[in-house]
């Protein structure tokens, strides 16, 4: 496990499990500590509960048993300075009737921050994702990748400490995805963001993560953990390195094992 130095872990999942109302066991009790500044990726076959785990971390759903801690406190303290999180969905989920800048400003508006005070932060967030020139555009005038950038800018504008992303680039073509991955790793590094990322892509997981958690289904659980030992910030060169290929091969084998019906909980 990665240790977070003197800073407390961003999130601790303490024997949290999830049984859905129809009786399905979505997640077996899970123990996980997410260190401050870590880029953690959840990967696994469908039904392994990676999105469920992410929703638990976002407090979108509550655990049936066990509990979670955010910065060593409960969820009521989340939202205070230094304890903010933002969630990026699979879809950009933008308001089609609002211009790009208004979409990015939304979270500030929802927390009653004045428009004049919000403006420089919106501009900064758009700058970070390279969309300054498109602030007056409507979402329908943007490509899929650009919409996703707006969605990321909307997350960054709140200056989050923890960024939760649920397969954000899953619907994009590979070229756009690689580009956004490279941008994301830069933003993560510059902003010292703790990030929890859900993906189906092995390459994406290896390229981005400091740690990858491979999950298995029935019930959803942590199968194995892989630490990607590669200095940051990573550039495109990493993708072409033999090390990258080796990580991908190993992760691919693990995923295949995790997908077997007989997969039993392994030791990391």
């Amino acid at each position: 496990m990665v240790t977070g130095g003197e800073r407390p872990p961003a999130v601790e999942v303490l024997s949290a499990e999830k049984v859905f109302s129809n009786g399905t066991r979505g997640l077996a009790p899970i123990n996980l500590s997410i260190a401050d500044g870590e880029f953690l990726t959840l990967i696994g076959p469908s039904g392994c509960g990676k999105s469920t785990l992410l929703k638990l971390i976002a407090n979108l759903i509550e655990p049936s048993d066990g509990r979670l801690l955010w910065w060593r406190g409960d969820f009521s303290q989340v939202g205070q300075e230094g304890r903010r999180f933002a969630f990026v969905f699979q879809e950009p989920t933008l308001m089609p009737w609002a211009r790009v800048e208004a979409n990015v400003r939304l979270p500030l508006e929802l927390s009653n921050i004045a428009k004049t005070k919000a403006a420089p932060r919106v501009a900064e967030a758009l700058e970070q994702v390279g969309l300054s020139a498109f602030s007056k555009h409507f979402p329908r005038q943007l490509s899929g990748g650009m919409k996703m950038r707006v969605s990321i800018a909307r997350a960054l504008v709140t200056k989050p400490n923890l960024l939760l992303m649920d397969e954000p680039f899953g619907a994009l073509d590979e070229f756009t995805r690689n580009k956004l991955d490279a941008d994301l790793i830069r933003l993560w590094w510059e902003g010292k963001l703790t990030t929890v990322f859900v993906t189906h892509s092995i390459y994406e997981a290896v390229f981005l993560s400091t740690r990858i958690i491979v999950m298995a289904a029935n019930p959803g659980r942590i199968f194995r953990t892989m630490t990607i030992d590669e200095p940051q910030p990573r550039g495109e060169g990493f993708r072409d390195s033999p090390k990258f290929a080796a990580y991908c091969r190993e992760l691919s084998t693990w995923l295949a094992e995790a997908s077997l019906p007989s997969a039993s909980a392994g030791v990391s």
Partner: protein
Amino acid sequence: MKPLLHSEAFVRIAAPLGVGIALFVLWEVGFRLAAVPVYLFPKPSDIFTSFVNNGPSLFRALLVTLRVTLQAFAAAVIIGTLVAFMFVQSRAIEISLFPYAVLLQVTPVVAIAPLVIILVKNTQLSLTICATLVALFPIISNTTLGLRSVDPGLANYFRMNRASRLKTLVKLRIPGALPYFFGGLRISSGLALIGAVVAEFVAGTGGRSSGLAYEILDAGFTLDIPRMFAALFLITLTGVVLFAAMVVLSRLALSNWHESEIRTET
């Protein structure tokens, strides 16, 4: 320069206009040749002459009908929107009241109009009430549907950001409901006119009205068929203008973002 016939906008106007003119010419020429008497079925020229001769009284009647229509339409929009807001605030309210909204909708206005006209002394007001009853339902049902049809992802996002009920309504539900609301406006504007005319007919048989429907009734009594047609044309024209106004309004509000109003450039 592009030939006019290849211009979409030109064809859109010219084609139906051409059909209309052709029909009028056929009508005029055919009825002249067949020597159909004016009291059976007038020619366009007879109707036009009637327009000129009865201009002031027809115009006065138009204003009366238009006033009832617009008042009823405005009332329907205000009441309908308020009811829709109430419906989405609480499921209990919707369940208890929606059947009555349907009840109002399915009862023909001709059947209630005499009752309303007897109960309400002021003719103008009674006509407006009848027309409002007709125009109300599309606004209620469309706006309710719109306010409920919130993008689930965005709704989730608002909830996650702990948005207040009011903020969610103003920032998410209302803008999202606009396309449905404008759809309701289009239907309702036409219905308000129908309601007004039908109510005038009912009131007119009692001799208590002065709108276009009364003109039609009166022309029927005196066998002034061209005047009847002239009044009929005015009613149709009013309906078309109202509909067009709603189309323009909807385009102004939605053209930037909603699929229904986006004109593709291909």
